[in-house]
């Protein structure tokens, strides 16, 4: 087992950790942080598995996909932050309202 599988397991762990934080926290900024951590976990799995053959050069296609993914993630984070600021400006709260708590 080469060392790339260690990073792949870290990617899985980060994904699950981010998912837990996404479900449990109510504050919108924390949810955005959690989604970024989940995205980083997915990228780790992709790039780690691209280099799992130690005899050849690493596969460049997942590297290109992850570079694209990092740029898309930052633009989605920027849009999500502006949406959060709009929600805060409209309602005064930092969380989305619960449906059954009127």
């Amino acid at each position, binding site marked *: 087992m080469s060392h790339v599988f260690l990073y792949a397991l870290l990617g899985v762990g980060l*994904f699950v950790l981010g998912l837990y934080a996404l479900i449990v926290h109510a504050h919108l900024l924390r949810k955005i942080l959690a989604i970024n951590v989940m995205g980083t976990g997915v990228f780790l799995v992709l790039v780690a598995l691209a280099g799992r053959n130690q005899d050849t050069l*690493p596969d460049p296609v997942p590297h290109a996909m992850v570079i694209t993914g990092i740029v898309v993630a930052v633009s989605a984070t920027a849009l999500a932050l502006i949406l959060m600021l709009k929600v805060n400006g409209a309602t005064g709260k930092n969380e989305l309202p619960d449906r059954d708590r009127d």
Partner: protein
Amino acid sequence: MTANGQTGKTFRLLLVLLLTVMAVGLGYAVLELHSSAGGLSKQVATNLEASGVSNPVTAVLLNFRGYDTLLEMAVLLVALIGVWSLGGIPDYRESSPGPVLDTLSRLLVPMLILVAGYLLWVGTHAPGGAFQAGSVLGAAGVLLLLSGWRLEKIFAGLPLRVILILGLGAFVTAGGGFLLIGNVFMEYPSALAGELILMVEAAATLSIGVTLAALFLGGRPEAGLDK
């Protein structure tokens, strides 16, 4: 989620249990993959000279999987349109930057622009490329915006929009212009591939840098002819 303590505790315990099962399943799936599969690295290596560059990641990004990069630049533009269409966030309160930010931005911004140009050029044969150079340029833009600089009003209308769509437009032109001589969409002629990739990367660097800085600013800059 902090309303009712007891529902919270059982809910969290159940969630931790389910997520542990999911993590174990995913970890098993990841570890079971064969170590001998090489993926696409052989195909990329055999076609690398025909692509015009010698960095395999740049070749994949700009030539073999160029369509994905085209759509990704469109995604950046759409995110900026989304941010601008949500209306203005009030700008930062007018405060002069302290001496540290002032000096640092004067020192760092020219160096960041130089590093961006170097990363763009070296991306053809070493790690680097349009996205890395564009993001360094975006960081320079963020530093400028933090120290209080704003775009002049005469440049904030059409010239700003021209630079924003320059990358996407150059890519579409390079990919679609050769439809006239009979190639399919996004097929470069082999003799011109290296130069075309560099031209598209240069336009994309400018676009990505300006888009990222505009995403940081958050509001649409006011355009006009008078100061």
